């Protein structure tokens, strides 16, 4: 359904370009959940915004293609792109607290989405004065709010975002994202701002949407454990590049890239009694000033001379790709 080929996106800042996405290729099938995992600042949000074609200034797509159902969306005129946004592709943003517009009622914000994409057709000659249409839309919103688990939705509809808790705001955003039944859902850390119980509920909700409607989901998270539990496939990102991608089981049980391996060793497991956590030393490199060759090289435990040359991503096993000099 979604096919990204050799995509690169840089922020053309005054000094050096910030290489937020470099040469990323990936595929997402109908009904599939892909986890996009990586440390803070590695370009996960940038990736989703690029798919929406909503990268803020000074971000520019340098090359590559993004195909949705075979059509390259990067060349679509603004009008057609707007029709896709919210309807075919929708996005759940990272920070629910700042994403809802503070001056509009939450219910109305959801309803606006239905209105733009004309989910309820109007029979009236003056569509914007069509009371029956408005009532129908409101009913749909209430149903959506119920589905995502917003209690007493009748009164919640008329409340403003600041009257919602963070978890409720996130649910409202999910209701908004699902309102037009998108084929592709881009979820940017949908649960980071929430506590664990609500986190579990929201993930269950997304899973349910995925199974019932066949909605494809790209789940961005820095939590490998969450991705492992929830996704069909996992892509590990480092410094704007995908360093390893494959079926969840393959990536988790048989990690090929030293970075993935490091990530797996730096998360605690509840089941094993005693386990030594091995944090990855060092920090993410500055995307405006990347080292030659492999970006992970300065932090890698298995670094050697070959790492200083450009490294391509290669398919090791079926559907299991790795970008590491070891396998070149």
């Amino acid at each position, binding site marked *: 359904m979604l096919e990204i080929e050799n995509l690169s996106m840089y922020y053309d800042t005054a000094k050096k370009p910030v290489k937020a996405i470099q040469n990323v290729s990936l595929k997402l099938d109908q009904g599939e959940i892909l986890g996009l995992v990586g440390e803070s600042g590695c370009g996960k949000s940038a990736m989703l915004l690029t798919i929406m074609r909503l990268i803020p200034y000074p971000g520019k797509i340098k090359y590559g293609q993004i195909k949705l159902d075979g059509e390259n969306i990067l060349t679509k005129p603004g009008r057609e792109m707007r029709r896709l946004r919210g309807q075919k592709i929708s996005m759940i943003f990272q920070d629910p607290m700042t*994403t809802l517009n*503070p001056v509009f009622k939450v219910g109305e914000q959801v309803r*606006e989405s239905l209105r733009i994409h004309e989910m309820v057709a109007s029979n009236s000659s003056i569509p914007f004065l069509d009371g029956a249409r408005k009532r129908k839309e409101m009913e749909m919103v209430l149903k959506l709010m119920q589905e995502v688990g917003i209690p007493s939705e009748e009164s919640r509809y008329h409340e403003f975002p*600041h009257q919602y808790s963070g978890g409720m705001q996130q649910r409202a955003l999910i209701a908004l994202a699902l309102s037009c039944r998108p084929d592709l859902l881009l979820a940017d850390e949908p649960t980071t701002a929430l506590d664990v119980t609500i986190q579990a509920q929201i993930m269950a909700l997304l899973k349910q949407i995925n199974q019932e409607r066949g909605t494809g989901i790209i789940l961005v998270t820095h939590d490998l454990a969450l991705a492992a539990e929830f996704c069909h496939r996992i892509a590990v990102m480092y410094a704007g590049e995908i360093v390893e991608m494959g079926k969840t089981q393959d990536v988790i049980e048989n990690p090929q890239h030293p970075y993935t391996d490091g990530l797996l060793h730096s998360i605690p497991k509840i089941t094993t009694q005693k386990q030594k956590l091995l944090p990855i030393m060092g920090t993410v490199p500055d995307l405006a000033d990347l080292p030659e060759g492999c970006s992970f090289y300065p932090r890698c435990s298995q670094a050697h001379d070959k790492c200083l040359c450009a490294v391509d991503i290669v398919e090791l096993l079926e559907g299991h790709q790795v970008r590491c000099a070891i396998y070149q």
Partner: protein
Amino acid sequence: MRFVKILERVLIAIPIMLGVAIIVFMFMRLTPGDPVDLMMGDSGSVTQEEEEALREEFNLDKPLYVQMGYFLSGMARGDLGNSFTRRQPVADIIWQTLPATIELALAATVLALLIAMPIGIISAVRQYSVLDRVAMGGSFLGISMPNFWLGIVLILIFAVKLKMFPVAGRIDYGMELHYTTGFYVIDSILTGNWPAFVSSVKHLFLPAVTLGAAMAAIVARVIRSSMLEVLRQDYVILARAKGLNEFRVVVKHALRNALIPTVTVVGIQIGVLLGGNMIVETVFGWPGLGRLAVDAIFSRDYPLVQGVVMIYALTYVIANLVVDVLYTYINPKISL
């Protein structure tokens, strides 16, 4: 609930008004110059007795605290006293001049907002564009030009040289108009009197521009800066992600938020407008409260000055109250 809160605010205004009354009363008496002397100066030879009689009529022979007592108790009954120079109740004089002032102030405000809003919005959306630079340069001029100077320059260029607008007044001399509201523009529309409409709009234009220039400049700047702030917010990206076109993103989602700080500034500017109107009305010979106040001050017409200043204070209090109430409507997080 809202009504009770508003009533509370209205009640708080009473001591403020009382304070203003006392201060105006004292300041007028402390200003050098005697009203009777000034009146007598015009008519040449006057006897001692006639002067005494006037002083007695105006209660100027009584001690200050007695005069203040008369003033305050009169005011409590809604009686602002009689003008020294015009020998008419002050309330009547104010009532006759008020529409002219309100008409000018409203025209200035509407004009200022009509110009400032689009300029502020476009300057923010196209930050650093030619339009943005020109508009911000222009607004800098607008803020720094004094009212009277701008008024005189406009008169010289558009009235004297180009003869596009009249020099002074509210309507052409001898023009027939049936007065109902006292707002000439509205009266002429109500009676379908188009020559009078054109004439009154032409008379209104230059003073309204002069009075509104500073407000337009400041509001444009405030809208620009708050729009720049708002346009960076996540909810603007969400609005785009919903599939809205850029016009609705900017005008609906961003502007509604940017208006919150703007309303406060407009409220403050209405106070500034009140001060400006004395100067602008004098420059353009506009027969309103501002000019009335200036005349009254020069002739030391104590009751008239007091009355006009009280109206100014009341207007200011009401404007602030309206802004506060408006604020609660556009900012859901605030209640009165």
